[in-house]
């Protein structure tokens, strides 16, 4: 059996009175892409944001249950969330580069976490940009504003930015929903390459995308996981009626 990068046990998320995620227990395999699909408001993004404790930022939000990363339960109050987020990177729905140069966008995180030497930073920036397949487009303008890049390039820059911290896991929250089809396919190719080194959990609205790039898929519906299986199996031969209704487009 393959090792798990992350697993949740009976995870529940509440926004005030609203019970947004209910008793979700999922295992995310190492160096695989796991897709979370489901209609809007089904709790998949909320679930994803609990995994690196981003929901801590929302005052009315409460998360109960366990999230195991190796032998640590990272949902405990004793977890250092700032240190945790170094190990679990995140890419957002809209590209959100910092108002800084391309170089600084990448170097900002590592420098804060202790990479001080300029030569090391230079190498890290190049390595990260290469990994995110954007080095060729940016190498001549590393010190120009990141806002000069197109939306798709900005999103790959954001991926490079998380990669630069050498995380174990990268969470992606609908990373291509704001991009055009060509940029989307480049980001998808990138995700398939990145899984050689990283475990990836991706929320997507686009079922074709889930089918193309993921190894396993979880189908969320109103806060529950209806079905969790190998992607091929889930799309070709779902065991639940709700799943087959959703993927054949009967609702959602």
């Amino acid at each position, binding site marked *: 059996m393959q090792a798990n990068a992350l697993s949740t046990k009976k995870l529940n998320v509440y926004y005030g009175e609203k019970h947004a995620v209910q008793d979700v227990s999922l295992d995310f395999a190492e160096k695989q892409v796991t897709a979370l699909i489901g209609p809007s408001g089904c709790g998949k993004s909320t679930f994803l944001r609990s995994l*690196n404790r*981003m929901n801590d930022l929302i005052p009315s939000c409460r998360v109960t249950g366990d999230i195991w990363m190796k032998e640590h339960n990272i949902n405990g109050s004793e977890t250092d969330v700032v*240190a945790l987020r170094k*190990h679990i990177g*995140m890419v*957002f729905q809209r590209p959100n580069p910092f*108002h800084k140069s391309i170089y600084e966008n990448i170097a900002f995180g590592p420098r*804060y976490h202790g990479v001080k030497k300029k030569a090391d930073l230079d190498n890290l920036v190049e390595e990260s940009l290469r990994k995110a397949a954007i080095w060729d487009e940016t190498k001549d303008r590393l010190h120009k*504003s990141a806002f000069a890049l197109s939306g798709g390039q900005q999103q790959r820059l954001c991926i490079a*930015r998380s990669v630069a911290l050498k995380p174990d896991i990268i969470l992606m929250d609908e990373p291509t929903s704001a991009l055009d089809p060509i940029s989307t396919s480049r980001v998808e190719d990138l995700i398939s390459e990145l899984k050689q080194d990283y475990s990836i959990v991706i929320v997507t609205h686009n079922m074709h995308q889930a089918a193309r790039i993921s190894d396993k898929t979880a189908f969320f519906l109103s806060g529950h996981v209806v079905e969790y299986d190998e992607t091929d199996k889930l799309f070709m031969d779902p065991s639940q009626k709700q799943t087959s209704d959703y993927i054949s487009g009967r609702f959602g």
Partner: protein
Amino acid sequence: MSAKTVDKIATGVIMCVAGFIIAVLLGLLGYILIRGVGHISWDFLTSAPESIRAGGGIGPQLFNSLFLLVLTLIITVPLGIGAGIYMSEYAKPSKLTSFIRLVVEVLSSFPSIIVGLFGLLVLVNKFGFGFSLFSGALALTIFNLPLMVRITEQGLRGVPPQQKEASFALGISKWKTIRSVLLPIATPVILSGTILAAGRIFGEAAALLFTAGMSSPRLDFTDWNPLDDRSPLNPFRPAETLAVHIWKINSEGLAPDAPQIAAGASAVLIIMVLVFNLGARALGRYMTNKFTAAK
């Protein structure tokens, strides 16, 4: 009346109102400038005032205004930015924070003559700072501080929340996020707000009458030791500012050319305030472009 006629009338009325406001503004500016600009010369800007003879200048007053401005900013900027950061990033919405906000609002709309009297009773007499630049700076702080707090808070709230998320997702601490991600983006807003506030400080008279005083000792512009009584840099000396000087010369000036001096000083004051305002806009635009530039 048809809808079209009503529309035309409404447009006409609004244009008239706008034109009226512009006319008032231009008339006011033009009157002050035309009356005063002729009197401005290098000699007028640098020489000391004369009490009885003609030919006095506004040198010390101009210097006092600028120095008081710097002193006030030294006190208000760190306090205001600190409190603004607290209000925007740390304070949880509660009765206490809405109370703080109310206090800040009330403070900023305090009549300045009241602040001046408060300064006289508390700063000048009770604390024994005397009529001094320092008392004046503290009095100006009282209504400048709320403005700084609000400017900083608005500047930080204007930063897209995605920027904060991006930084937190990289495992960056809250303080580092504020310092390195949020503040640089908010800087154009904070900076141009600060300059606008500075324009207000520059033109303030009522609060200074009883705090910074209505006289200036003979200043020795070759002595830059801040501890000497005659040094211009001594913050504990009385200092009549330009705005106060205009008021004084208009009400009790004895020099034969007092009206011309008042007109010239008013023109200088207006020009300085205009420079602050236009400078704030230009700087804000320049920095916004620089931070979000496409190239």
